[in-house]
């Protein structure tokens, strides 16, 4: 009697092989950066693979203070906090009336907002530079906050409009019968009901704003603007400068400081991120 083939065994092993392979490709570069941030320049140059002979936390201190990564980090935090707050307030307001009120021009306004998702930012780069300069906002944090918020609106309005449409009309009607005005209805009833949608959109908007590169390098120019650079900009400048100075360990430390908080935050919130992705998929 022959042993029947066991097809159920081969494929799981193969799948694990491929899946683990890609997981390795994803994590190896990140681990390498973290590891290198604890090595000396000499160890990095002579043995890119090896472990540090002893950890050098002073690399991190040098990157944070001397290379100003700490200051850039703070600037990024200020800009994203301001821009995210502004985006969520303005985006929710616009999406709410677009989803639940009928008025002339509604379709045009909706199209104008959502159409902004289609085009790469840099098509508007030259005029944007002059708009911001003429408003006296070039190289300032408030300028960057306003621009980030404006360019986040298409995504926010698109998803929140779809979300507000799914909320049951009966609750709003009941509140209106009870004498609840439009403003109270929005702030007391609709916003709390829209919480799950708001959280998902806020997470993706945060990633969009935290990871911006083109907008800051164009808009944070001019006298003294280096003091107000954001992390993305500071890190690439560091990569160029450290290359000349040969401070590779400082560069890897700066890189690690820039990526660890976001990675840890993602691991903590991964459920919301992935369910937001699944929800966005339905529309």
């Amino acid at each position, binding site marked *: 009697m022959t042993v029947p083939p066991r097809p159920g065994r081969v494929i799981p092993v193969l799948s694990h092989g491929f899946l683990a392979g890609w997981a390795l490709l994803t994590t190896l570069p990140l681990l390498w950066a973290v590891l290198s941030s604890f090595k000396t320049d000499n160890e990095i140059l002579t043995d*890119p693979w090896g472990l540090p002979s002893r950890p050098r936390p002073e690399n991190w201190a040098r990157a944070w203070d001397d290379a100003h990564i700490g200051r850039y980090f703070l600037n990024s935090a200020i800009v994203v906090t301001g821009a995210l707050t502004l985006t969520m307030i303005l985006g929710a307001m616009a999406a709410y009336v677009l989803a639940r009120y009928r008025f002339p021009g509604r379709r045009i306004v909706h199209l104008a907002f959502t159409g902004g998702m289609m085009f*790469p930012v840099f098509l508007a780069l030259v005029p944007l530079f002059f708009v911001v300069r003429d408003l006296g906002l070039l190289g300032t944090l408030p300028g960057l906050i306003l621009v980030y918020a404006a360019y986040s609106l298409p995504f926010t309005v698109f998803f929140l409009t779809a979300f507000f449409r799914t909320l049951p009309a009966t609750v709003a009607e009941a509140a209106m019968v009870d004498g609840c005005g439009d403003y109270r209805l929005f702030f007391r009833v609709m916003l709390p009901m829209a919480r799950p949608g708001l959280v998902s959109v806020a997470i993706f908007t945060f990633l969009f704003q*935290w*990871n911006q590169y083109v907008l800051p390098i164009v808009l944070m120019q001019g006298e003294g603007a280096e003091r107000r650079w954001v*992390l993305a900009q500071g890190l690439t400048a560091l*990569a160029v400068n450290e290359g000349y100075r040969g401070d590779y360990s400082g*560069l890897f430390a700066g890189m690690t400081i820039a990526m660890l908080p976001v990675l840890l935050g993602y691991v903590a919130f991964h459920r919301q991120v992935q369910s937001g992705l699944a929800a966005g*998929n339905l529309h």
Partner: protein
Amino acid sequence: MRGKRLFVATFLGPPLLLYGVFVLSPYAQAFPIAATDWRGLTPQYDFVGLANVRRLAGDGLFWNALGHNALLLLLLPPATILLGLFLASMLSVGGRRDRAGVHGVRGAALYRIVYFFPQVLSVAVIGVLWKQIYAPTSGLLNGVLRAVGLDALARPWLGDPRFSFWCVALVLLWSNAGFYVVLFGAAMQAIPRDIYEAALLDGATRATTLFRVTVPLLWDTVQVAWVYLAIVAIDAFAVVQIITDGGPGFSSDVAGLRLYKTAFADAQFGYASTMGVAMFFLTLSVAALFLRVTRRDRPET
């Protein structure tokens, strides 16, 4: 009724004002600026009509850059989507098979978390990191090659015009693929399990199931993915600027970088806007063409 009007106006006014000033007006202004020889230092400029367009048509450097975008547009979406579908289906149906049907692999949740990592990293971190990975002596890539005895393959990757563009293209694949594994995975979980069980009873293999059942049911998601990736391919600015700055020579240049340098290094704002407008229409045509091609073979559901 007047109260309602006022409410709509107060809620729509502020967001529209912000959006109009910083998004809509720059897009609109790009068109008139594109027809000038404006150099930005003085407010004076002359309208030069279509002279910028003629100059663009004969600009070898721009066409070289645009050629690299075209190559990315052809290769990046299919490569990323195929890899995404492959890994996502491994996650959802790559596990053991028994009477109850096909199972997902163990540890699928952990894989999903890890695959999403590049998506949450800023493009600056990705660019700076990969520039170090490709570095000739201290880089991870050459380090790995030497460690496994393939010293002959180690080379200055970014310094060689034959490889620089492909190095950047691989970074784009690396940084995007994981997102689509998770996206397709989420869409696959929404497919009812009994469809798979029915296919299984009919004797379908996993490969047949993937291409005949899963992909058609996922078609809307695949289409969205294609559009997103096309936008990445037409842009590609940040990764190229950080890793190679378009070099060596112009071997990895892309249109966005050409525009950026024309505007902010050479101060030829009029001509840079012409590039922007050209790419605006290009993006529009690619999107229209794509939607027309894919609409026809959409399955009836």
